[in-house]
């Protein structure tokens, strides 16, 4: 199934279509059940599909495992292995067609080609780019024998042929081919961004769903004179990153919740020693080992508040696959400019899903570390207390820049001190950097009405669905808007508050049972007591566009209520 999805997606990307592909697996590493959903559109899309228009099932038992996460369109077209009888009423006007996938594939000379047969039919029925798919099949099996390639192409044509028997004109996709697009995952985009930002040292320990970043950088960093170290654990990974950065080289690690928890102490060291460090944290279901293969937004509080002591750090969230690139470069820029640890919060649904992107969007300005001037190196104070809190840096190898630092409280020269006066002053200095940072990077997105009756607050991977929900609701004439902070620590508080104050009803939607986003917002902004509606649930299932629309609808009556008395008063 997954292979077929790749072929289909790549082919559509070649013809400039917009594609979002997600995969799901059972607990088994190999030979287990898997599912792959591909959303294809002629226009820009921001979320995986809510409703499935066309479904290919080789085994209904496997389908059952994913059924709870797959909703069929009322008139869904369903192709299934003929000799495996489908369950009752899958969808009201569903068109259910049994196809002898296995046997046909075998007869057409590609025993394991049933999925190719499937995409042949789907492609013909939906009117997808046949030629590009052929090319994609050839590329896919390039390393195999000519016979294999031939066989699969034959099976594909066979599929097109069988499709003729299916009558579903309504399902045809209308589009005109455009420029080829890139097709990549959020993790790949983060890795590419690291290299773009100038990262030349990566240290990491594998963990689902972030390992693709390690894989990519272990291949590419050596090609550009960088290095990659797979460490013994996350304690060593973040330690090596702090070391590499101390040595003057932009450094990064990538992990997921369990690893992030283990990095807590070292991030505190980076904070007090003021050493840039970038951690890409790809969230998964928690707590503990939780659900490693699924998405959740429950590492937020740990990211913004985790670690003992008063520990300034920056946290930047990732709104979509393309944003994985921008957020990661931003993270390096912020880390280098403000000399602190920066956590990039992505999640499984962004990190491991793939989407089509215009090649030219993967560009972003790069900022470098503020190196000490010769003047500053005279009686050098590594932790000079400046108006912005940002001090001049020297790095090993710079003559005259020598200093001795530590994780103890220290004075401007970096010398340990247990005095209250020094501690208070240096806390002030370190936190002052966050003010400068907030001013320079008020990162957020805003969608929808300028005078919203309902305002939605969300963050991260739910942004795409929220954005589509806002579009749909606006189309219905409902005045709704969404505010999405991208910089989470420090939060652009003034902007968030202004947005809240501009709405009648506030909807907060998040994938954290404990309402982490809502609680975090409360620490910095005021939410109207009886006009704030929190929709928080566990992760493990994507937040759907219809789900958000229902959330907004459920608060609309209140808006009405509010209107009447106002009318009276007027």
């Amino acid at each position: 199934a997954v292979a077929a999805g790749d072929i289909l997606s790549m082919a559509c990307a070649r013809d400039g279509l917009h594609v979002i592909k997600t995969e799901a697996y059972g607990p088994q590493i190999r030979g287990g059940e898997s599912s792959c959903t591909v959303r294809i559109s002629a226009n820009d899309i921001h979320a995986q599909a809510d409703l499935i228009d066309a479904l290919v099932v080789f085994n209904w038992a496997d389908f059952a495992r994913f059924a709870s996460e797959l909703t069929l369109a009322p008139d869904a077209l369903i192709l299934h292995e003929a000799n495996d009888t489908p369950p009752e009423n899958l969808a009201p006007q569903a068109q259910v067609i049994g196809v002898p996938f296995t046997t046909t594939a075998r007869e057409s000379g590609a025993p394991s080609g049933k999925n190719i047969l499937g995409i042949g039919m789907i492609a013909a029925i939906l009117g997808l780019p046949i030629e590009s798919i052929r090319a994609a099949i050839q590329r896919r099996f390039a390393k195999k024998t000519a016979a294999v390639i031939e066989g699969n192409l034959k099976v594909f044509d066979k599929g097109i042929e069988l499709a003729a028997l299916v009558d579903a004109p309504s399902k045809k996709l209308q589009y005109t081919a455009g420029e080829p697009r890139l097709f990549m995952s959020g993790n790949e985009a983060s890795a590419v961004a690291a290299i773009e930002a100038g990262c030349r040292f990566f240290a990491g320990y594998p963990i689902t769903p972030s390992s693709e970043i390690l894989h990519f950088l272990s291949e590419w960093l050596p090609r550009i004179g960088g290095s990659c170290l797979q460490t013994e654990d996350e304690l060593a990974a973040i330690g090596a990153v702090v070391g590499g950065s101390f040595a003057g080289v932009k450094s990064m690690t990538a992990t997921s919740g369990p690893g992030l928890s283990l990095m807590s102490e070292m991030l505190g060291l980076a904070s007090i020693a003021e050493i840039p460090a970038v951690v890409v944290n790809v969230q998964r279901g928690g707590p503990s080992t939780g659900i490693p293969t699924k998405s959740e937004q429950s590492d937020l509080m740990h990211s913004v508040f985790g670690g003992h002591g008063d520990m300034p750090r920056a946290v930047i969230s990732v709104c979509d696959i393309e944003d994985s690139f921008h957020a990661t470069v931003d993270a390096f820029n912020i880390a280098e400019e403000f000399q602190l640890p920066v956590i990039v919060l992505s999640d499984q649904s962004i990190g491991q899903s793939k989407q089509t992107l215009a090649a030219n969007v993967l560009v972003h300005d790069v900022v470098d570390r503020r190196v000490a001037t010769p003047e500053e190196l005279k009686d050098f104070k590594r932790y000079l207390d400046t108006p912005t809190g940002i001090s001049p840096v020297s790095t090993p190898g710079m003559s005259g820049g020598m200093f001795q630092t530590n994780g103890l409280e220290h004075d401007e020269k970096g010398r340990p001190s247990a005095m209250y006066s020094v501690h208070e002053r240096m806390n002030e200095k370190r936190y002052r950097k966050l003010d400068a940072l907030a001013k320079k990077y008020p990162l957020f997105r805003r969608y929808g009405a300028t005078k919203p009756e309902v305002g939605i607050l969300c963050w991260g991977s739910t942004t795409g669905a929220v954005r589509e929900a806002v579009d749909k609701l606006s189309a219905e004439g409902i005045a709704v808007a969404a505010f999405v902070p991208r910089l989470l620590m420090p939060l652009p508080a003034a902007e968030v508050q202004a947005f809240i104050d501009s709405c009648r009803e506030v909807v907060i939607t998040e994938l954290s049972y404990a309402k982490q986003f809502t609680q975090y917002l409360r620490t910095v902004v005021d939410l109207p007591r009886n006009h704030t509606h929190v929709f928080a649930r566990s992760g493990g299932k994507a937040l759907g566009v219809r789900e958000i629309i229902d959330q907004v609808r459920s608060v609309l009556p209140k808006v009405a209520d509010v209107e009447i008395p106002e009318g009276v008063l007027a």
Partner: protein
Amino acid sequence: MSACYTPQTYKNDLKPVWCPGCGDFGVLNSLYKALADTKCEPHDTVVVSGIGCSSRLPGYVETYGFNSLHGRALPIATGVKLASPGLNVIAVGGDGDGIAIGGNHFLHTARRNTDLTYIMMDNEIYGLTKGQAAPTTPIGDKTKSTIYGNPEAGVDPCALAISFGASWVARGFSGDVKGTTELMRLAIEHKGFSFLNIISPCVTWRGDDQHKEIRAKVRPLPADHDNNSRESALRLTNENGIVTTGVLYQNSQPTLVDEILDIRWKAQGDKQPPTKKDMLRQFAPAF
């Protein structure tokens, strides 16, 4: 590298917080001398430590210095070296720092033959936290945390280092500044991971006599010792009643930096480095 460096070159004006008589003073003085002997360019040298009395040492050395987290000196030192292979990297710390909380990093940093020198100041106790048993504390010893006597047999850091795959392993005694300086010189000059365990008495928690007692136990290497043999080296560890000092073991094998350079070669050879376009090609459906 300039040639006119003296021990003074590496001294700064910060007064050590160590107790009068602490063995670490001897280690610090040996390091000043060894840095001068090896003509280490101060600004190309980084001394990294963990947390402990001994780990305060980088604060007193006029090079780049980093007194980091308890147990994490080696990962940080590894990062420094891999990011900037031209630097001389020296990690220092205590026995607790390196073998208790830091034990796993000791294993893997040694195993990778990481290009750095690791100096362990071994006082068989947790000094900074006021006298609890360390993994090196002899069995039976009474400490703040083992008032009925330490139930665990103390480990010999050199034996561990050899088993971990360290390519250079030696033992010194802080009371012997001359000998220790010489061992430090060799350690710094060794290509790869060099481990130097220095017995450095804690007069406060191990008693004022620890110094005398150890001095009485110290022995030079047996004349016939073959320090290319792990087996014979291991026989000079975990000894009873005597402490053999000198280079117990050494071999020469590819270092981590060698491997990194080799990988770069395999990846790119002498080809032009790839462009962004090259990197993005795999995501482009251009077929």
